[in-house]
């Protein structure tokens, strides 16, 4: 069995930032990721981020990933990075089982940060399993990482920020986006993203969803339907759109499996995307010395994941008596940044979700 002081599971924005602050504090860190490169989903984000400069606003996601990875280079003597390594299990005695190229291993760290991120939800409609129907993230991966087009003519389901941004990225890559469908009566994402699409002539159809996909071996067309104020399909409002790909952007769900497996206290909060762990102010779960950061604590933006990672990294290091020289000051700063990121009308859903989670914790 291998040992390490701090094991971080997941090398996306949260895991990378957690590694940075824990290393700064003096901890010895092992960072594992199942992919063959670090950066998580940032590496396919070609758009510039919003928010404050402190979370790399106005910088493209892929550039943020590069920066976070470069920041770790100074600490190679205390940092071990294991790529192509999947965490298979997390047990209550804090043992983590892993697999890398068919070799199974066990790690027993003093502290763990679970930063496994989230996965894309699907939508229930007839023939939603036809080839050519993809999650929005899959389309980004295919286009922005491998330079391959998902199709020639596409419809996007979901007008949240991901749906809007990926629609724009599809157009940048040369794909015709025939429409964006939104089941709600209003557009979900930022107006600036929606306006960009509208200027390019993409119709954004609100109170409309996909009823079924049609095709023999691959998707050939979809049937859309209008929804009334009770979200019920309006008979006679069906319309056909010919497509060779359909992109589904209906949100993400936290990758809670490792946490659930260790019987960590969890709670279902729909505003946060699904099952999320109860956490202390320091991002420690109900299992001693197991911390969490990023989308696994509730689906938000990459900016919040970075800040949560910073806090979890500091606090996990502190637990092992590695005190960051400026811990108090930067901790205060990070907590303020999180509050700012969640402020305003756009953070309303997250605030409600976190409120529900906290309420439940007191009762439970």
């Amino acid at each position: 069995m291998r040992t390490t002081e701090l094991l971080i599971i997941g090398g996306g924005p949260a895991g990378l930032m957690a590694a940075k602050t824990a290393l700064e504090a003096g901890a010895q860190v092992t960072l594992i990721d199942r992919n063959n490169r670090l950066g998580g989903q940032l590496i396919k984000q070609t758009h510039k981020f919003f928010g404050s400069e402190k979370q790399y606003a106005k910088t493209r996601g892929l550039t943020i990933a590069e920066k976070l990875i470069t920041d770790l280079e100074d600490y190679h003597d205390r940092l071990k990075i294991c790529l192509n390594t999947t965490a298979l299990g997390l047990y209550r005695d804090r043992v983590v089982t892993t697999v890398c190229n068919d070799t199974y291993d066990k790690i027993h760290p003093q502290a763990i940060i679970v930063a496994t991120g989230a996965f894309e939800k699907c939508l229930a409609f007839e023939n939603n399993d036809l080839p050519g129907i993809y999650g929005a993230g899959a389309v980004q991966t295919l286009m922005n990482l491998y330079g391959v087009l998902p199709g020639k003519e596409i419809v996007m389901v979901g007008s949240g920020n991901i749906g809007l941004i990926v629609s724009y990225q599809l157009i940048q890559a040369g794909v015709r986006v025939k429409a964006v469908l939104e089941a709600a009566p209003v557009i979900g994402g930022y107006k600036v993203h929606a306006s960009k699409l509208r200027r390019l002539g993409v119709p954004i159809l609100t109170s409309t969803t996909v009823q079924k996909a049609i095709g023999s071996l691959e998707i050939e067309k979809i049937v859309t339907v209008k929804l009334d104020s009770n979200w019920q399909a309006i008979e006679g409002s069906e319309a056909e759109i010919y497509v060779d790909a359909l992109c589904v952007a209906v949100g993400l769900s936290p990758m809670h499996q490792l946490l659930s497996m260790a019987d960590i206290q969890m709670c279902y909060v729909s505003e946060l995307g699904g099952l999320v762990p109860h956490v202390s102010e320091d991002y420690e779960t109900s299992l001693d010395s197991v911390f969490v950061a990023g989308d696994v604590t509730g689906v938000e933006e990459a900016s919040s994941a970075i800040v949560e990672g910073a806090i979890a990294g500091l606090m996990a290091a502190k637990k092992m008596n590695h005190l960051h020289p400026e811990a108090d000051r930067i901790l205060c700063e990070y907590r303020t940044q999180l509050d700012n990121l969640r402020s305003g009308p756009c953070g309303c859903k997250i605030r409600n979700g976190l409120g529900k989670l906290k309420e439940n914790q007191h009762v439970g």
Partner: protein
Amino acid sequence: MRIKQHPILDFEPKRPILFRYNNQEVIGYEGDTIAAALHAAGIKVLSFSMVEKRPRGFYCAIGNCGSCHMTVNGVPNVKTCLTMLEEGMEVVSMETKVK
């Protein structure tokens, strides 16, 4: 279909890699995953479901959904969306349950 021009990203020509899909020769490029190479060659159907034989393509492309499983070099249930393409690979779509 590959992206020819892009305002932000550069996709420079890479070394071609020859592999086989259901006994037919396909060309991919260095840096492709198996699924990306098949997709670029116009192949979206990666397998068929075990009971109803419904066609399957990938959904998530990052190893979560399991919809891209194929038999690669005789090994079943390989995540083709994560596995990098190698010269001479034998890629076969799965139609029956494999142990």
